[in-house]
C-alpha cells in the first residue's frame, strides 16, 4: 500500500459539482503531475460537506485546511503554496470572508447580557460531575472560611445583613430562620433542602442540581455549622433522575475529599448529607408535609406552631430552605453581605431565577436582579411575544400566585410589589400569556391542579376548591349564572382563612387575580355566553360566510364530523349540532370564508 503525505479532499457533492468542482479536480490532477506531487498527494472525492453555498470545497489534510469557493485559477496557488511549501492559503480559507458582526458567544446576546447570575453562576460553566471544577471556581472556599474564621453567630449575622429571603415562595428572611433554630438547645438538629419543585412550569431548582450540585452541598454544610447541626437531608422529587444522580455523585465526591463527614477540613466540624426521594406530590413541598414525608410517613401538613425551627424533623429543631436560596449562600459568605445587599431593591435583595415559558420567544431560565421590571424580562430578555401578538398577562408564582396584566408590565419584580397587585413571586415560574388566552380557562387550569393535589386533610381545601372548580367549569361551558363571580369570591375568602396549609390558603389566588383584572371576561362568559379569546369551545361557533364562499368543497372534505354540506354554486353550510369545533375547516378554506365567533 502506498502512503501519501497529504490528502486533498475535493467535494463531489451535487452542489459543488454544479459549481464546477469537477474542473477544479481536473486542474488539481494536472498540476500535481506537473509538480511531481502525484506520488505524495492523493486526491479524494468526497460527498457533500453541507456547505454547498460556499462550494466548490477543497480540504487539505493533515492540516485540515478548508478552502471554499475554489476556482480553477486558485488551484495553482494551493498546489504551489500549500502542497509544495506547506503554507496555508489564508485568502481561500472558509469563514474568512464571512461577516464578523454577529455575536459568536452567549455572552454577546441580550438574553445573557441583561442577566446577573449569582445562584446560576456555575451553571453552564463547570462540569457538575467534577468536584475539581467546582473547587476551581472558588468552590468550598466559603465553607473553609466559616469553619476557620467565623463563629456560627457571625455566619447568621452575615445572612441577616445580606437581606437574603427564601426563594421557595414566601420570601421569609433566611438569616432570621436560621437564628431561630440556632437558639434552640438540642443535641440533634437538622438542615433540610426543599428540592421538590412542584410548580407547573418551574425548573430552576432542577437546573441548579443538574448544573451545580456542589453549591448546594457547600451551603447546607455552612447552614449546619451556623445552627449546630451535623445532618442534612435533600428532598428531591423522583421525577428528576438526572438531578438526583448528579447530586449523588457530588455527595460521594465531597465525602471522598473530606468535605462531608467527620472532621471536615481538619476543623473538627462534622456534617453529613442524605438524599430523600419524594413521589412528586405538590403538597410535599409544604414544609411540615415535607418533613413528615422524610420521616417516612404520608406527606400531610400539620398545624404550625410549633414551627420546624423548634420542632421539625423527628421533633428536633430543623431548618428548611429552597435550592436556589442555598445556591446564593457560598457567594454571600465570600463576597460579603454588603455586596449582596447592594443588588436588588430595598426589601428584596439579590437576584431571582425565573423559568419563563408560555407565549414568549426565548423560553428558558433567567436570573435577574430584584427590581427588574416585568417588561424587561418579557421583552428585553425573553424576546417578546411570538407572531407579533399582544401581551395579555403573566402568571407568576404558579398555582399559589396570580397574574400580572399588561397595565402592570412596568412593575419592579420584588416580593412586596408583586403582593401589592395580587400576584406573588412564588418559586419563579413565569408563564406568559398572549391575547389568545382565556383568563377564565387559565384560572380553571390552575384550580384543576390544586384540586388534584389537595391532600384532603381539611374540608375547606378538599371541598371548597372542588366547588370553585365546578363553578368555573360551568362558566367555561357557557352555563354560567348571574352571581357566580360573587360566589367565587365568597368561597375564596373562606378557603383562604380556613385552610390548614399553604396549599389551600393560596389555591384561590389565580381566581381572585383573574377576576380582579379580567372581570369583563368572566362577565362576557356568564352574561353574553361569549369567550372573547375564542378558547372555550362550548361557546364557539364556526360559520361560513356565504358571501365569501366559492363552493369549492375543500372544507367538507376535511371535516371529521361530516357536518359541512353544500353543492356547486351554493354556499356551503355547517350543521352546528354536529360540529365538534375542531377548527380543521378554517385552515383549509382557501378563501378565508370560515370564521370562529
Amino acid at each position, binding site marked *: 500500500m502506498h502512503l501519501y503525505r497529504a490528502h486533498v479532499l475535493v467535494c463531489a457533492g451535487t452542489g459543488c459539482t454544479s459549481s464546477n468542482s469537477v474542473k477544479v479536480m481536473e486542474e488539481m490532477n494536472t498540476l500535481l503531475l506537473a509538480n511531481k506531487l502525484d506520488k505524495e498527494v492523493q486526491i479524494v472525492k468526497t460527498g457533500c460537506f453541507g456547505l454547498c453555498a460556499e462550494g466548490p470545497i477543497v480540504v487539505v489534510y493533515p492540516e485540515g485546511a478548508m478552502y471554499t469557493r475554489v476556482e480553477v485559477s486558485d488551484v495553482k496557488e494551493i498546489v504551489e503554496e500549500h502542497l509544495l511549501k506547506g503554507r496555508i492559503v489564508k485568502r481561500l480559507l472558509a469563514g474568512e470572508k464571512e461577516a464578523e458582526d454577529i455575536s459568536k458567544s*452567549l455572552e454577546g446576546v441580550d438574553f445573557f447580557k441583561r442577566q446577573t447570575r449569582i445562584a446560576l453562576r456555575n451553571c*453552564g*460553566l463547570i*462540569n457538575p460531575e467534577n468536584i475539581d471544577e467546582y473547587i476551581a471556581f472558588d468552590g468550598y*472556599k466559603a465553607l473553609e472560611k466559616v469553619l476557620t474564621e467565623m463563629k456560627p453567630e457571625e455566619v447568621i449575622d452575615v445572612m441577616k445583613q445580606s437581606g437574603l429571603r427564601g426563594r421557595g415562595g414566601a420570601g421569609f428572611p433566611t438569616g432570621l430562620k436560621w437564628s431561630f433554630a440556632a437558639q434552640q438547645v438540642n443535641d440533634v438538629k437538622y438542615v433540610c433542602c426543599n428540592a421538590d419543585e412542584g410548580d407547573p412550569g418551574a425548573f430552576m431548582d432542577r437546573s441548579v442540581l443538574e448544573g451545580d450540585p456542589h453549591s448546594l452541598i457547600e451551603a447546607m454544610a455552612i447552614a449546619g455549622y451556623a445552627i449546630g447541626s451535623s445532618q442534612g437531608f435533600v428532598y428531591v422529587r423522583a421525577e428528576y433522575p438526572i438531578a438526583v444522580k448528579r447530586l449523588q455523585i457530588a455527595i460521594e465526591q465531597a465525602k471522598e*475529599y473530606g468535605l462531608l463527614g467527620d472532621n471536615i*477540613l*481538619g476543623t473538627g466540624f462534622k456534617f453529613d448529607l442524605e438524599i430523600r426521594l419524594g413521589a412528586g406530590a405538590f403538597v410535599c413541598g409544604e414544609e411540615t408535609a415535607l418533613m413528615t414525608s422524610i420521616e417516612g410517613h404520608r406527606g400531610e401538613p400539620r398545624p404550625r406552631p410549633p414551627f420546624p425551627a423548634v420542632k421539625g424533623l423527628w421533633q428536633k429543631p430543623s431548618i428548611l430552605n429552597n435550592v436556589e436560596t442555598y445556591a446564593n449562600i457560598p457567594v454571600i459568605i465570600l463576597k460579603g453581605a454588603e455586596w449582596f445587599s447592594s443588588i436588588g431593591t430595598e426589601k428584596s435583595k439579590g437576584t431571582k431565577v425565573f423559568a419563563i415559558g408560555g407565549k414568549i420567544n426565548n423560553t428558558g431560565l433567567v436570573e435577574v436582579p430584584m427590581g427588574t421590571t416585568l417588561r424587561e424580562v418579557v421583552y428585553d430578555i425573553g424576546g417578546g411575544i411570538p407572531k407579533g401578538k399582544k401581551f395579555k398577562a403573566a402568571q407568576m408564582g404558579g398555582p399559589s400566585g396570580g397574574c400580572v396584566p399588561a397595565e402592570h408590565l412596568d412593575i419592579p419584580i420584588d416580593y412586596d410589589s408583586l403582593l401589592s397587585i395580587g400576584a406573588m413571586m412564588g418559586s419563579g415560574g413565569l408563564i406568559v400569556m398572549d391575547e389568545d388566552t382565556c383568563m377564565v380557562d387559565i384560572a380553571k387550569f390552575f384550580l384543576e391542579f390544586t384540586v388534584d393535589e389537595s391532600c384532603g386533610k381539611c374540608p375547606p381545601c378538599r371541598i371548597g376548591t372542588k366547588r370553585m372548580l365546578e363553578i368555573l367549569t360551568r362558566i367555561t361551558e357557557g352555563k354560567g349564572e348571574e352571581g357566580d363571580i360573587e360566589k367565587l369570591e365568597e368561597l375564596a375568602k373562606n378557603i383562604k382563612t380556613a385552610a390548614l396549609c399553604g396549599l389551600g390558603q393560596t389555591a384561590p389566588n389565580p381566581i381572585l387575580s383573574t377576576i380582579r383584572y379580567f372581570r369583563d371576561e368572566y362577565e362576557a362568559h356568564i352574561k353574553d355566553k361569549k369567550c372573547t379569546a375564542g378558547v372555550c369551545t362550548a361557546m364557539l361557533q364556526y360559520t361560513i360566510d356565504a358571501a365569501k364562499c366559492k363552493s369549492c368543497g375543500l372544507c367538507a372534505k376535511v371535516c371529521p364530523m361530516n357536518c359541512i354540506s353544500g353543492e356547486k354554486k351554493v354556499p356551503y353550510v355547517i350543521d352546528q349540532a354536529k360540529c365538534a369545533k375542531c377548527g380543521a375547516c378554517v385552515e383549509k378554506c382557501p378563501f378565508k370564508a370560515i370564521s370562529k365567533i
Partner: protein
Amino acid sequence: MKSIAELEEIRKKTLEKISLRTNADGIRVVVGMATCGIAAGARPVMNAFVEEINKRSLNNVSVSMTGCIGVCKLEPVVEVIDKDGNKTTYVKMTAEKAARVVVEHIVNGQVCLDLTIGAVEK
C-alpha cells in the same frame, strides 16, 4: 481527607486546566447536558464530538459537559473555548453540525458563524 492547602492546589491546577491559559493549543468543547439539553438531543451531539475528535486523533481537545446554560429553546447548546479563552456558543446542534464544527472550527480555526447563537437569534 483533603486539607485546605490541598484544595488551594486543586483550585489552581484545575483553573489552569479549564481556562487553558497555560496549555499552548488546547481547545475545550463543553456540551450543555441538563434535562432540556438531553431532551433536545445533547447526547448524540456529545458522542459525535468525541467520535470526530478521536477519529482525527486531536489530543489537545477536551470534551466535557455542563449544566443548563439557560436558553432552553436553542438546545442542544455547545460552547467551544479556544486557547485564548474565546468562547463560541453553538446552538440547535446536531451530530452532523458537530462534525462540521470539528472540521471547520476546531481543526481549521474557522468559526461556523452560521451555527452560532448570534446568527440563529438574528
